[in-house]
């Protein structure tokens, strides 16, 4: 997938090749969480509670996590980059199974986070889908999802308000499959993961 971005996407949009450092991670960990740091870096954690997006990878699939936001940011061509909405991560595996676009909730609350996340996911799909080679790659995948990973907030220990309002995600450990016709038009499903809800990557 990395090559499709640096070669085919760059070529399709007639861009200069970006200089990229530490912009993807590969893992076969059985459980991992992804954190989007304030510096815009993607960090992998195998301990619980440190990341925003949680993955269970019980079959040790070879997973690639691309910092898509960093990739787009690295592109020097302003007309392409200016105002282009992008999601945070792309997740794929080496077998023809998963292709996931992920938006991780910002650490800094900016309001309208939820609707903004959906717009960023949709805009990313639109950017990727017009590149023929990427479209072919995506179409080869069985499970295609746009995911909003919504890390829960922590309130002072004596208050239970956030815990109470967020209980639903503890009752249902899987993510919520929601209706999103704009995204479904691309052959993708839209999922929302909150708190401890974990995306399960299986064969």
């Amino acid at each position, binding site marked *: 997938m990395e090559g499709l971005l640096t070669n085919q996407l760059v070529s399709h949009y007639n861009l200069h090749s970006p200089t990229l450092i530490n912009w993807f991670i590969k893992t076969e960990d059985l459980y991992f969480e992804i954190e989007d740091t304030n510096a815009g870096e993607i960090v992998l954690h195998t301990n619980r509670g440190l990341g925003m997006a949680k993955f269970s990878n019980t079959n040790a699939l070879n997973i690639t996590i691309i910092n898509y936001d960093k990739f787009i940011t690295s592109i020097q061509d302003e007309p392409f980059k200016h105002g282009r909405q992008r999601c945070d991560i792309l997740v794929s595996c080496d077998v023809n199974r998963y292709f996931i676009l992920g938006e991780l909730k910002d650490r800094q609350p900016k309001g309208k*986070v939820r609707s903004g996340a959906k717009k960023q996911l949709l805009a990313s799909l639109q950017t990727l889908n017009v590149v023929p080679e990427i479209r072919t790659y995506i179409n080869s995948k069985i499970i295609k999802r746009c995911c909003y990973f919504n890390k829960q907030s922590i*309130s002072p220990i004596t208050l239970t308000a956030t815990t109470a*309002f967020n209980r639903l995600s503890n009752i249902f450990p*899987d993510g*919520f499959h*929601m209706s999103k016709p704009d995204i479904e038009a691309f052959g993708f499903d839209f999922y929302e993961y*909150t708190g401890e809800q974990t995306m399960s990557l299986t064969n």
Partner: protein
Amino acid sequence: MKESIHIKNLGPIKDIYIDDIKSITVLIGESGSGKSTLMKAIALFRWIYKMHNIRSYLKRSKVSKSPFRFRMDTYFKNCGFEQYLKYNPEIIYIVEFQNQGKYTIKFANNKLSGTSDKDLVQLSDLQYSKLSFVSETRNIIPLWADKGASLSGGYLGFYFHEVYNDFVLASESLKELDISYLGLKLTVKKAQSEKKYLIQGRKNSYEIDFKNSSSGTQNAIPVSLIAEHFSNHFDFEEAFNRTLLKFLSQTDSITDFKPVKNLGDIQKKLYIHIEEPELSLYPEAQCQLINDLISKCFVKNTNGIDLIFSTHSPYIINHLNLLIKANDKNKLINGAKISFENLAVYQVEGGKIENLIVKNQRIINTNPLSDTINEIYDQYTQI
């Protein structure tokens, strides 16, 4: 019977399509997001379809003169939509039946179509319906009722008078109503030519005029009274006959009238639309009011009801999940339960809607209503 509606460019609404308006439809969203506009548009087109049914019934009963004309400019003015007309709104309302019957009423380019003689409703599909719109202005009812005689002739807007008329109609059939979730009882007493609305406390501990009760009471009682009236006491036959007589006498067509079908053979439907049922209520009472409303309309009802309400309350949306599970487990929560299949919850935002029903579970995604509390404590931990 399945209803769908597609609305474009109607005030805050950019493009909203609901493929199947469920028996219980709940709208959430910020103030000004278009919840009320959506609900009013649905109510308006349900009313137009109702009138189209009445006209179809009369035409098929040999009454050749049309008893009325549809005046969209008046209806739009009543709804507060008149300033939206310059943006060329488009509304398509479709009713479909299992027997292939399909009726499309369309408003586009400032013209209404689908209600002419060639569009008449088939005999087998004829329906007689009653609509109620319980507006947020219902809190004026106690004062208006108290001063009704002296204020006659005043006008407080179309929706206030709609809900006031339904309140008065309901209080004709119900002289007493227990509002158990508030620990109160409404009593309607006749005093000379006027009605007096009184509120009694627990075990008759006190009695006060309705106008002097709490704001929560003043907002909740019209909801419960109207719901109880329409779900169990509404006299379809009387209403149907009154409607027919009115139109037949207007057109001087009583002698022409050869009823093609009896009311008993016509489908009947009640539609209730409520703006923010929770107004002025404490969270626990909000949930109890919803129990009461759902119980009246969908558990203890004798008339078939479709209900739409808008809300800002995260408690109510979360409470609906409890009522869904109660139904799945064949239990009642204070007399209430909700069939998951009959429920839709939409978030209205940015002129569009998003369905909050979770596809892979039997629940509503309440996270959008939890964002505020999370953001409060995100900021709390930051400063």
